[in-house]
Every structure is written in structure tokens, then in C-alpha cells.
């Protein structure tokens, strides 16, 4: 077996390959030892594990902490919708909008159950006692309206949730699969599947609100009535138009004879929020309480 031929080819396209392998030397030496004894059929699996380890994410955070963070936000949302459905204001919503809120509420409850199982499954203790501050909820005077209405807060919560998941994706990159109740989950993929459902919720609530606020689109152009709220700001604000170091609104930046609009460039990408930004009092942090 000439592994070194393979390594040298990798080195041609990835000058850093030896560095990656060097830090994983234990894997490498055990591979040669085991490889001598392994049957021909077993070697491909060993090679696969060898390469996936060498190229695994290098910035992985503590998955227990990451999933408890996600659970905190899901608990906040779940409690918010529970309060919404129990509120007399809920009866002022249309039947279709009530059905949508019930659907979203069910998903948030499912996310809570799933994340509790994930945190427990990876050896952590699920966070508890996270509720939407009652006094803040009581201050919401209407179902429909702006930032101090039920739907307005729902939009801000969902869009913050979308951004919060993005902020932790790098901490889950490269983590191994976990098995919970017989099902295999890739941590990053699982987080992104929840994240995608949050984005569908956000889009729907923005769409519901567009009836009264026509400038609010399902995607964040910056023109919506709430798009200037702190939930859309941050180190990388939603108004950002530079991706991978390329300014998309510069003429001919990526396409000949084409300049993309500020709205399209901003709305095409949802931006992350850091933990500190999410838990700041101006965003989700200010909504958690008794």
C-alpha cells in the first residue's frame, strides 16, 4: 500500500496537508499498524476515517454548550407561543393566522423535545426555566402591529433565532455523528435542519405582516418596517453586501456588465449573530425572565 503516493498528491493541491496529518500523527501510526493486519475489505473504512479526521473542523466548540444555547432560544420561543395562544388577543387574529401560529408553536415544542434529547444524549444537562418575560408579554397591546405587537415580536424572535443558529454553525462543523433513540444525527446538519424550519417560520410571519406593512418581504431587504431594529444589526448586520471579501454592489464585481442592488445583495444572505449579541438585552436577552 503506497499511502505516501496519495499524500503527495494531496500535498500538490493542499499545501497544508502535511500540517493536518502531522497533528493527527497518532491516527497515522495506528493506521499503519492496524492496516498490516486488516483484511482488504476493512482498509477503505480505515482510510475514510483517517482522512475525515485529518480534515475535520478545527474550531469545534463544546456541543453540549452549543445545543443548550439552541435549547434556550427554543424554550423562549415555545413559551412565547404558548402565551400567545392563551392570550385574549389571539382571538383577534384571522383563522388562517391562528392556524399558522399553532403550527409554529408545535414545531417549537418539537424542537425543545429534540434538543433536550440531544443534550442528554451527548452527556449534558438540558437547560430549564427559560420563559418569555410575563411583564413584556403583558405590554403587547395588539396581535397585529409593529415592534410592540405579538406578530412584531414573533418576527423579531424568529429572525433572531435564524441568526443565532448561524452564529454557532462553525462550532458544530466536523463533530462526529450522535445516535439518539436509534436515529443517527450529524450535529451540524441537525442544527441546520432546525435553522431552516425557523427560517420558514420567519418568512411566513413576515409574509403575514406584509398585508399591513407592504415593504416587509419574507426576506430581509432592509426596507421592512422592523428591519432597522437591533435584531438586524450586529458585527455583521443584515444590511451587509460583502460576501467572501467581494462587494456585490460594486459594478461588475462577479458578473460582467452587472451591478446587483443593495436590496438583492442584502436579502440573498442571512447574517449570523454571536452569543453575546443574541443574549444582549436589546435582542433575545431582554425577553428572558419570569
Amino acid at each position, binding site marked *: *500500500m*503506497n499511502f505516501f*503516493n*496519495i499524500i503527495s*498528491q*494531496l500535498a*500538490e*493541491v*493542499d499545501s*497544508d496537508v502535511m500540517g493536518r496529518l502531522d497533528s493527527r500523527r497518532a491516527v497515522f501510526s495506528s493506521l499503519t499498524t492496524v492496516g498490516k493486519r486488516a483484511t482488504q475489505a476493512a482498509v*477503505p473504512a480505515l*482510510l475514510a476515517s483517517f482522512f475525515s479526521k485529518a*480534515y475535520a473542523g*478545527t474550531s469545534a466548540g463544546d456541543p453540549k454548550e452549543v445545543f443548550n444555547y439552541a435549547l434556550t432560544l427554543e424554550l423562549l420561543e415555545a413559551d412565547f407561543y404558548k402565551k400567545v395562544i392563551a392570550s385574549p388577543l389571539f382571538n383577534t387574529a384571522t383563522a*388562517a393566522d391562528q*392556524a399558522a401560529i399553532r*403550527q409554529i408553536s*408545535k414545531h*417549537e415544542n*418539537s*424542537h425543545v423535545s*429534540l434538543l433536550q434529547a440531544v443534550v442528554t444524549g451527548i452527556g449534558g444537562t438540558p437547560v430549564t426555566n427559560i420563559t418569555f418575560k410575563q411583564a413584556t408579554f403583558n405590554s403587547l397591546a395588539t396581535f397585529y402591529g409593529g415592534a410592540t405587537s405579538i406578530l412584531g415580536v414573533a418576527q423579531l424572535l424568529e429572525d433572531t433565532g435564524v441568526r443565532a443558529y*448561524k452564529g454557532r*454553525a*462553525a462550532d458544530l*462543523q466536523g463533530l462526529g455523528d450522535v445516535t439518539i433513540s436509534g436515529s*443517527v*444525527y*450529524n450535529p451540524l*446538519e*441537525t442544527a*441546520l*435542519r*432546525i*435553522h*431552516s*424550519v425557523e*427560517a*420558514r*417560520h420567519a*418568512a*411566513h410571519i413576515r*409574509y403575514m405582516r406584509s398585508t399591513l406593512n407592504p415593504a416587509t418581504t419574507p*426576506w430581509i431587504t432592509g426596507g421592512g418596517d422592523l428591519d432597522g431594529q437591533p435584531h438586524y444589526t450586529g458585527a455583521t448586520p443584515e444590511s451587509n453586501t460583502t*460576501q*467572501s471579501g*467581494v462587494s*456585490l454592489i460594486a459594478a*461588475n464585481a*462577479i*458578473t*460582467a456588465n*452587472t451591478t446587483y*442592488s443593495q436590496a*438583492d445583495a442584502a*436579502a*440573498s*444572505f*442571512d*447574517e449570523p449573530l454571536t452569543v453575546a449579541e443574541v443574549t444582549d438585552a436589546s435582542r433575545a436577552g431582554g425577553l428572558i425572565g419570569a
Partner: protein
Amino acid sequence: MSEHSFSSAWRAQPLGRRNFLRVSAASAATVALVATTGCSTETPEPVEADPHQIALPSADKGLFYYGYLLALALSTTYDKILASPPTDLTTAERTVIANMRDHQLVYRELYHYYIDPTIGGALFPTDFAFNTATFTLTTRLGVLAAVQQLADLAAAAYPVLLPLFTSASAYPRALLLKTVSVQARHAATIRDLRTPGSFADSTAVEPSTGLLRTKTPAEVNAALAPYFAPYVISVANLAVPV
């Protein structure tokens, strides 16, 4: 680390001809070595195949090609709809589809730029296209059905895609990561236009877990295959999700 740190040989040649990333050759060599337990030091030459066979390269570049093809499929279809919209498609619906088209164009062009920063360079043969002839784009319902099919497909593809990236560079992941949720927003919105309230129904989301239903690159590729004929795309070199 530069975000465009791939070999110049990569840029020079369109796919489907001969040269794939050397990483791809390395993995092919791995398989060959394992299969024969031989000790060849030769890089196996890819077999000169049918010109309509296009194999996406391995590693992150292959994933970008895959994202590019999705964006090409969606932007081509949306563009076709907007070029001669059915009369019963409302102004508001046209605006939604126009926004979605513009976003997909940004993705298509940005992925293209990422694969090959030579603006105006071609990634595929000149007659390669996404053929929309089998969609019914002459009625509102036909349009919404086609757009939902494609938007749901892209939304289902992205959460699976990101964990497959292996580059140490944060840029490729960040780009795709920022796109995942916008694909979801598109799918939810077109669903609401077609069937009000279906933005996240049980055909899209597993009710018990609240997880989005996803599709692997092989499943997405199979769904798109009829529209790329006579070209045949292979995603066999792409990493396989769990």
C-alpha cells in the same frame, strides 16, 4: 489562507473533459490501490468518456459546482416565467418570483466566481442548459407548482451540503451557511402563495422532531437529471452525508 487557493490547472479546463482536481485522482488512486493491493505510483488517467457525461469534482469545489447547478436550475426557470408570465399570475406574485430569481442569480454568479474568478469564463459546455420545457409555465398554478418543486428541492439540499465541506477556510462554509435560510424563506413563501398556510407543513417538516426533510446530493441530482439531458451529471465524487 487565500480563499482561491486552488491550482491554476483547475481554472483552465471546463468540467467533463479530462482534468479533475488532483484530490479526486488521489481518492480514485486510493480505491484502485485498495482494490488491487498493488503499489502503483501512477495517477490513473480518467477514461475519455461520453462528452455528455459530466462528473463533478470531489471536495469543496464539487460542492460549489453542485450549488451552482441548483442556482442555475432555479434562476433559469424563474427567468423563463418572468419573460412571459401567465396573465393570472398577480403583480405581487411576479415580484416574489423576481426577487427569488435575483437571489438565485447572485448565488449562481458568486459560486461561479468562487470556482473560477475569471469573470465571463464558462464552467460547462456552451450547449449545457436547464431545460424547462416539461414544466407548465403558461398558467399560474403550473408556475407555482414548478417554483415550489424547485425551491423545496434547494431548501432540502442545503442543510445536508454544509457539513460536507472540508476546507479549513471559513469562506466557503460562511457563504453556504448564509444561503441556507434564504432558500428556506423562498420555499416557505412560494408554498404560501400556492397553498396558503403550507409554509412548513408535514410534507416539508417532520412533525415529531420539527426537523426539515432533506435530500442528499444524489437525490437532488436524480431530481434535476431529466432537465439537464442530454447531459448526465455525476455527483459520485462528492462526499456522502450520513
